[in-house]
Structure formats: structure tokens, C-alpha cells
């Protein structure tokens, strides 16, 4: 088997791994794309009572098609409730009701800080990125944050060019010192492996099947810490893959 390569794509593995981090009954602030797939995969498997909230205002969405934007009409039809964005950010997010926030980043650094604002100098950027959206407040207020990001030396610098969404800021005490209410990043899932945080610093805790520590080092902009209990990420099960490919993303938009 291993010789003719894994029977699944990196995205599929990332989605499955993200889904496994979600507990039944949790309230998740969902992003579009892989996070949305991860949440719906979890609902189909071990977390049927997972509540999905989109920053657009849809609560308890039950989309009958794969939404390509967080404001898709399929997130409204047959949802449990639609709220104003004032309610979503004030009462749900700042109110402390969000257990898990999903974030993606163009850059993420060793302390889990995310950049989605600019590459280069803010005033004269090499590349102007979209900006925060709801990411800054999700990073600050959600109880736990999960990050899904493709990994490369450029996307994993020692320090991001701009902190859009704070992780552990400057290190272990970073969040506490600044009084950030949420718990901060819990796990970063890339195409190479999974990373957790110790003393506010990213640590490689599992390698995806077929990936090596060398690959990880080559694609990280600092001397990455490796967990002494480094494991191999569990491959997607046949059932996970079937639900993903046949039910959730039949047109293979994301997987």
C-alpha cells in the first residue's frame, strides 16, 4: 500500500484530523472550505449535536449543498436561527459561547500568531491580503482555536509580518499578560503534520503518513520543536472518506 502512496489527499487528511478535534455539543464558529467540511464531517460521525455558527449570522445551519461563501443562502434555509452580526459578535462570540473557532492564515509563526493582512510593510505591502474579517476577535475570544494551513518556509516564518489574529503573541505568558479571554490556538493542522502548543510555542506532535521530520524542518522558518512523543497522524478511515467524497463534497471543490 504505502509504496503506491496514500489513498487520500492532504486536504482530506487535514479535514478528518480537524473533525476529530470537535466534541459533541460544542458550538463552533465555522469558516468556509475545509473548516466547514470538518464540522459537517464531525456532525455525521461522533458529534451529531455540534452547533455551527457562521459570522454571517446563521446559527444551527443545515446546508443542503456545499456553501462556497459564509453568506450562502443554503446556510439560512432550514437553520435554527438567523441573528444580526451585532448579536453574533457581541452576544455569541464576546459573550463567551463559542467553544471552537477555526482560523486559516497566509502566515503563522512559532507562537501561533496569524497574518492575513499584508506581506511586507503595511504601508507599502508586497502583497495586500484580505485583512481580519472576524479572525482577530475569534483568535482573542474563542475558547479554543484550530488552524488549518498549508505549510511552507514562507507561510511558516519565525515572526509573521503582521499579527492580524494573536496566538500566544510573544510567548508563554503573552495572552495572559494582555488579558485575552480565549484559550488561543490549540492545534495547527498542515499538509505535513499536526502541531500543538507548549509554553506558547508550536511543537510538532504528529507527522502525516509518508511525511518526514526533514520535510517539516525544510518547510518551517525557525528551529521547530519536535515532541518526544511524536506520533503518526491517523489516516482517514474509509467511512470518513466516503462521507467526504460522496456526501459532503461530491464535486470535489475542496477535497
Amino acid at each position, binding site marked *: 500500500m504505502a509504496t503506491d502512496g496514500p489513498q487520500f489527499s492532504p486536504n482530506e487528511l487535514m479535514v478528518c484530523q480537524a473533525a476529530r478535534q470537535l466534541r459533541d455539543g460544542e458550538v463552533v464558529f465555522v469558516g*468556509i*472550505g475545509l473548516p466547514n467540511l470538518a464540522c459537517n464531517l464531525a456532525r455525521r460521525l461522533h458529534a451529531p449535536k455540534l452547533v455551527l455558527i457562521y*459570522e*454571517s*449570522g*446563521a446559527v444551527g445551519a443545515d446546508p443542503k449543498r456545499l456553501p*462556497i*461563501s*459564509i*453568506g*450562502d*443562502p443554503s446556510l*439560512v*434555509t*432550514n437553520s435554527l436561527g*438567523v*441573528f*444580526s*452580526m*451585532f448579536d453574533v*459578535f*457581541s452576544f455569541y*462570540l*464576546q459573550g463567551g459561547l463559542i467553544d471552537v473557532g477555526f482560523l486559516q492564515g497566509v502566515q503563522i509563526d512559532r507562537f501561533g*500568531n496569524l497574518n492575513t*493582512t499584508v506581506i511586507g510593510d*503595511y*504601508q507599502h*505591502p508586497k*502583497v*495586500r*491580503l*484580505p*485583512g*481580519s*474579517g*472576524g*479572525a*482577530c*476577535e475569534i*483568535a*482573542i*475570544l474563542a475558547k479554543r482555536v484550530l488552524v488549518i494551513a498549508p505549510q511552507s518556509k514562507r507561510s511558516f516564518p519565525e515572526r509573521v509580518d*503582521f*499579527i*492580524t*489574529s*494573536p496566538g500566544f*503573541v510573544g510567548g508563554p505568558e*503573552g*495572552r495572559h499578560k*494582555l*488579558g*485575552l*479571554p480565549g484559550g488561543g490556538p490549540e492545534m495547527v493542522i498542515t499538509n505535513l503534520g499536526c502541531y500543538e502548543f507548549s509554553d506558547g510555542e508550536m511543537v510538532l506532535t504528529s507527522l502525516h503518513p509518508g511525511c518526514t521530520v526533514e520535510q517539516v524542518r525544510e518547510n518551517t522558518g525557525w528551529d521547530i520543536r519536535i515532541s518526544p512523543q511524536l506520533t503518526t497522524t491517523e489516516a482517514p478511515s474509509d467511512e470518513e472518506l466516503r462521507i467526504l467524497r460522496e456526501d459532503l463534497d461530491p464535486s470535489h471543490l475542496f477535497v
Partner: protein
Amino acid sequence: MTMGDAIRRFVHDGEVIVIEGFTHLICFAAAHEIIRQRRRDLTVCRLTPDVIYDQLIGAGCVRRLVFSWAGNPGAGPLYALRRAVEQGVPNSIELEEYSHFGMVARLTAGAAKLPFYPLRNYMGSDLPRVNPSIKTITCPFTGEELAAVPALNPDTAIIHAQRADENGNAQIWGLIGVQKEAAFASRNTIVVAEEIVSESVIRSDPNRTLIPGMIVSAVVHEPFGCHPSYAQGYYDRDNDFYVRWREISQNEELFNKYLEEWVYGLRDRGEYVARMGAEIDRLKARPDYCEPVNDGY
């Protein structure tokens, strides 16, 4: 009132405008008329500039952008915006940048005529470093330090509704975003509606009213006025167009060709809809009606 008259009367060069609607009910018909009337030096505010402001910026209408997320939702970057920021084409624009929560808070303060709004946000982020309008305030009860953002009070808000009466009492369902706050925060509000209904329809379900006629300066009847955005219960989002926009906006020539064919070349939204032709049927909404409620006593 026609869209042409509404824009002539309530959108002037150099003014501050907000066209709201989070993915849903984004009034492209109004933006196209602003481009057609060649407004200049506008300060345009929106949580998500989206394709609608990419078009205004590429057409040279904008001097300053106040926003929180500048992308093409689900389809990549906004290239016209990037050209303006990175190369000053067709003109350089100033950016005033917040997060979504910050923009929501600014409009809420504006609607309530509060000079600022407090929120637990921005600690550890670089946003306050590049935006001096994000300050802090100390709670007089707990001594905690919170973030504060200033009120946003645009000259004119343009809000698209599914239905409104001739006095502008507007009802919106599906995603309601920050439309109510944007309308109350602005000096003038233009309500654009898919359907103009009799007052009795509005009165049959008062809890559905999001914007009261008393704050509305103009009412425009513009069916299909949101395409490529959508109107819940009327037509679907044209996701294909949003994806196509990636190519169009990436290439200045294609961008200008688009404006020629779909904006300058047309007199109004009516001609836009005619030009869409059968395309429209693909997007028409299927019926999925709510359980009616009793408002009697």
C-alpha cells in the same frame, strides 16, 4: 424614485457612503449607477468590500476604503483593489481597516449617536498599531481596559430589501448583517426593494420590519438589483460570476471591458436584466415558505 435620481440626489463626490449586506442583498444596481454617474473621491464603507467595491475602486470612484475583510468570498482576491493599493491604478486609495466586530461596533455607535463603542478586542493584534482610530478605554466599575472604536456616521446608506412600502418601511429576512445599524447611522438612507408592497403587507408582520420609513430618504424599486449577490426567497447567489470575476478583475483590460458592457453600455438595471436574459431563470428561488404566525389578540 429611479435609481438614477436617487444616486443623483443622495450620493455626491467626496461623500461617505455605505452599501451594506453581508454576502446577501448587496445592491450592485446602486454601485453600477454610481459608476455610470462617474462619482469621484468617495469614502466607501463596508465590512466586506466584495466584488461591488472592487468595481467602484477599479472605476475610479473611490478615494478611501473603510473595511474589515477585502476578498472575493470563496473565489480569491479583489484584484482591482490590489492594483489601487499596490500600484495606484487607476488611483491610489487610502485604507482604514478594522475587524468585522470593529466595523459592527462603529455602525452601532453611529446608529445610537454614541461617540464610541467599547469591545473586548485587539489586544495582541497589530491592527491598533496601524489604525490610530482603535483606542482603549477603562471601565469605571472594574478598571478593566477595553478597546474602543469611533462612531461611523456615513452621509448615505444604500440598503436592499426584499420588500418595502412606498414610504420605505422595509422588511428583510435571511441574513440581516448590519443593515439596520448602517441605515440608522447614516444621514440619508436609500431603500432599494425587490418588491414594492402595500403598507398592509408590512403591517401584517411588523416584527419583520428592519428599517422604518421615517429614516428613509428614497425608495427605489429594482427587481434583481443585487445580482451577482442574492435575495433570499427571490434569487440565488451567482457563484459562477464571483468565480469568473477573479479572471475579469485580474486583467485591467477585461475589467474595463466588463464595465463597458455591463455598466456604461447600459442605461439602467432594466437593461442589465434584459441582457442577462435566460441566465436569470437559473437563479430563481424555489419556494420554501415559513409557518405564518398570528399577530391578533
